[in-house]
């Protein structure tokens, strides 16, 4: 069997206050940590799209940040094409295996223009000046932000910044894309267009591995092959939308989320 593009093994993440702070606040043991992820395991194969679906606070962003080598897990391991994202974080970064689009859109230098921002990040991805210029131009065209790219980012709307964030994740053409709610600020028409582009161009034609964190069930089904239901840090179900619905005995994914919430409460 081919190597998984992304492999997650018994991942746990507990956020704790520092020992000194806990001592000062005299926190009782039960309040000493927030469990964000609890024993999460799954594989994503090359060229596959997996949607991580869950309510607020489910642990989606925590999972994405661990895979992007921006956060250390408490226990467990995660691999991108066989490279441990903790022990080999530098290699994962150097090989440019992962493109990460964070949920927050305020992640640009506000006084620089959109294209200046993208050009800067392209150079940090080891692209030459010529490659960076070409790549930025391509992405501005694909994401339809060419006309606004010469404006300072602080003058752009949330939706436009979201498109810049998506472009930034694609700059180095990475084999694995981690997109954290990439369409949440887009208008419905462009949302549909981006979803189609992600599915047809990124996953099907270019064979990229896509992990998409979303609340949006329609988006999960339209872009990805499988969905993983995450609730209060636990993976409640994973499979094709039909398999997950069957497991939850629900008619749609909203029903699946209700079932997952009830499971979590038990």
């Amino acid at each position, binding site marked *: 069997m081919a190597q998984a593009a992304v492999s997650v093994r018994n991942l746990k993440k507990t956020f704790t206050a520092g020992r000194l702070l806990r001592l000062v606040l005299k926190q009782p043991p039960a309040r000493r940590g927030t469990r964000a992820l609890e024993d999460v395991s799954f594989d994503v194969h090359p060229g596959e799209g997996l949607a991580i679906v869950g309510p607020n606070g489910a642990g989606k962003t925590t999972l994405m940040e661990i895979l992007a080598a921006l956060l*250390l897990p408490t226990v467990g391991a995660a691999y991108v094409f066989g490279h441990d994202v903790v022990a080999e974080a530098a290699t994962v970064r150097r090989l440019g295996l992962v493109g990460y689009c964070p949920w927050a859109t305020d992640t640009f230098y506000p006084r620089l223009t959109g294209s200046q921002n993208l050009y800067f990040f392209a*150079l940090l991805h080891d692209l030459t*000046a010529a490659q960076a210029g070409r790549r930025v131009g391509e992405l501005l065209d694909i994401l339809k932000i060419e006309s606004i790219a010469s404006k300072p980012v602080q003058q752009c709307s949330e939706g436009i910044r979201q498109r810049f964030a998506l472009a930034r994740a694609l700059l180095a053409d990475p084999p694995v894309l981690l997109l954290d709610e990439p369409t949440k600020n887009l208008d419905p028409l462009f949302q549909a267009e981006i979803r189609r582009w992600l599915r047809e161009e990124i996953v099907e034609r270019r064979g990229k591995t896509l992990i998409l964190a979303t609340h949006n069930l329609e988006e999960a089904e339209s872009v990805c092959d499988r969905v993983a239901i995450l609730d209060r840090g636990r993976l409640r179900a994973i499979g094709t939308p039909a398999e997950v619905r069957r497991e939850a005995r629900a008619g749609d994914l909203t029903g699946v989320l209700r079932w997952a919430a009830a499971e979590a409460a038990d």
Partner: protein
Amino acid sequence: MATLRKAWAFFKRDLLIDLSYKLSFAFQALDLLMAVAAFFFLARIIGRAPFRSYEPFPFILVGMAVNGYMTTALACFSQAIRGSQPIGTLKAVLATRTSPLSFMLLSSTYPFARAAFDAALYLAGGAMFGVSLARANVPGALLLFLLSVLVFGSIGVLSATFTLVFKRGDPFLWLFGGLSWLLGGVYYPIEVLPRFLYYAAQLLPITHALNGMRAAILLGAGNRELLPHIAVLAGFAVIGVPASLLAFHFGLRRAMKMGTLSHY
């Protein structure tokens, strides 16, 4: 080559941001020249009585130029972290093919270039008021300068580590920034300090940086005379550079473990 491209990217980013505040950019340079003029006239009150072997104005001028550069070395790494936390770019940069250490070190390209520009302005301003640099021992001054940047840079990296872990209340900046200004002999010779403060001043790297630079630039002291200052600064650098890099490694790991990388 890739590192050079990245260094250029950071330089260009900061230059563009700085130029976007056009008036501020121009006024900062003007401010600096006015400070030189003010100290020139202040020095005339003191008269021509030599500070050790120095005239008061050149003494203060070199003190200001060196102190400005060292303050930049002290603060720029911490500012690279602090500045990128509220605007959320820290994680975005760390998600590229740029290591955290490279990010921090390369972020200093513009501040250092700017500080060099400021130092050149100080010296040019000084030349306008008659300070002669004709006797300067340039290689000696450059060596002292490089060692001083290493020492202050390593303290700056410790300061950045503190910012990464504890966010505010950086004791390194306070200790080395504030004390250097007070005890390091920026504006007056440390001989005027009470005895116990004079000895405390000997423990500060800026004292040796300033004494050495003044001797090299203003008196044209030979390398043999500069050796004690070079040795002390090299000692600070040998301990400071690896210690600060190690501290940064552990500080970064802690922030990534606690999930506080972008907190501020």
